[in-house]
């Protein structure tokens, strides 16, 4: 491994990459149980005009109408970006947050769909993230569609998945995934082997830009501190 590749942790890489996906947007919201996107949104907020709303935080959450306000806020067009993940993600950007196997008696049970089935339609820019890049997480077809990646033209839809960031690569999405860049230290063959769905390739597929000194300094300083309120365990581990 090069010195450059050693200079940051996998989590720091994810945080930097996810923050670039929302940099400069007006209002970026992060759901529950999402420490990596929370750090990324705070990094975007620290670097520009972005307002970051972090569910689970009191400091970075100005909602005062209870748990439903996030969803009404999205419906009103006041949220520009949101992060989603999935136990499984397939080539049509369908995400599965429910489980593996028959949903009535699953082999593996995930926590549940949360707001995905709604926000996937209402927020213009959905950033998908999945650290584990494997045939197990990126599948040909999800066992359960918590939220569909694409909809028929007559279905009211103001947004959807635009990009997927994993620990190996970055894909764009427009009805199909397209490999845009590969993170340093990995190659196309590795990604092809680890991806369960078909995808297109950008021409050229470039190398992902590593975290800058400035990004790393912010992550290790200000962002870590800001994150500790809502994600104490995760922040301690950065």
């Amino acid at each position, binding site marked *: 491994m090069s010195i450059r590749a050693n200079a940051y942790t996998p989590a720091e890489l994810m945080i930097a990459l996810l923050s670039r996906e929302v940099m400069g947007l007006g209002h970026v919201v992060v759901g529950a149980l999402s420490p990596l996107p929370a750090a990324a949104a705070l990094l975007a907020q620290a670097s520009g005009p972005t307002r970051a709303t972090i569910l689970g935080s009191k400091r970075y959450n100005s909602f005062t109408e209870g*748990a439903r306000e996030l969803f009404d806020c999205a419906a009103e067009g006041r949220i520009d970006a949101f992060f989603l993940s999935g136990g499984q993600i397939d080539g049509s950007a369908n995400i599965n947050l429910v489980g593996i196997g028959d949903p009535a008696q699953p082999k593996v049970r995930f926590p549940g769909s949360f707001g995905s089935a709604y926000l996937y339609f209402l927020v213009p820019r959905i950033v998908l993230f999945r650290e584990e890049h494997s045939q197990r997480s990126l599948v040909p077809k999800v066992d359960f569609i918590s939220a569909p990646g694409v909809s028929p033209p007559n279905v009211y839809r103001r947004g959807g998945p635009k990009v997927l960031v994993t620990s190996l690569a970055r894909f764009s999405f427009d009805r199909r995934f397209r490999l845009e860049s590969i993170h340093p230290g990995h190659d196309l063959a590795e990604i092809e082997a680890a991806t369960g769905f078909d995808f297109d390739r950008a021409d050229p597929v470039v190398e992902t830009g590593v975290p800058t000194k400035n990004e790393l300094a912010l992550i290790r300083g200000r962002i870590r501190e800001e994150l500790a309120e809502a994600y104490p365990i995760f922040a301690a581990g950065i």
Partner: protein
Amino acid sequence: MTDVLTLEGLIARIPDGAHIAIPPDYSFVAMAATRALIRRKARGLRLLGVPTTGLQADLLIGAGCVAEIEAAGVALGEAGLAPRFSAAARAGTITMRDTTCPAVHAALQAAEKGIPFMALRGILGSDLVSRRGDWRQIDNPFGADEVATDPILLLPAIAPEIALFHSPAADRDGNVWIGRRRELVTMAHAARLTLVTVEKIVEESLLASEASAAGTLPALYVSAIAEAPHGSWPLGLGDDYAADGAHLVAYAEAARSDDGFRGYLEEFVLPHVY
């Protein structure tokens, strides 16, 4: 009139089989009441997470109190998956009604407004729709386009029998502080019975000033209150106390096995010291 009861008196108002709305783990969860429910061997409860749940449901499921659960998510926050929920779902010993957060809010708002349904955008094409069966798709009667249809989902109202939560304070009249956790107001409006445990009962009316009234659920909606100091532990409560993270991690570890979970109950639930 709101009754002021003991914790056990309050819990006695919850019959076996009751349909109970509960708040998410980050907010005003009645954990002392949950332990009391387990001690009195409640059975067949139907839980509604508003819109999610975590430790509270996991404990009740592990202790055999739950028949059915409707929630948009069940997890222990930073402590990870909810082990007893996951085990019960895999074993098929509980009925899980998967939903999505805004659908829970909208269905409770429909009950609050006394209307049979609420429309909601999104969701179409999710397997949630086909799995549930109680949601209906119609063509938006206000659709602008004469040619194309505009499909939209209608969700039936959910009126829980009971809303159960914990709050920092109530006054002697039964007015309850809820701050900005307004999903608790919607829960109480929608529910037939609202039972609230509180850190303390204060002497001055919460409705005495406009400032405190703004964050208050009026006694009109509160059937009974009971004092339960530190009653959200090991979860947190607003500005009062943070979640006990170490305890939650220890619980998540213990509850991975049947034996570990039984040990947890024997130490932290059955003795009635917490």
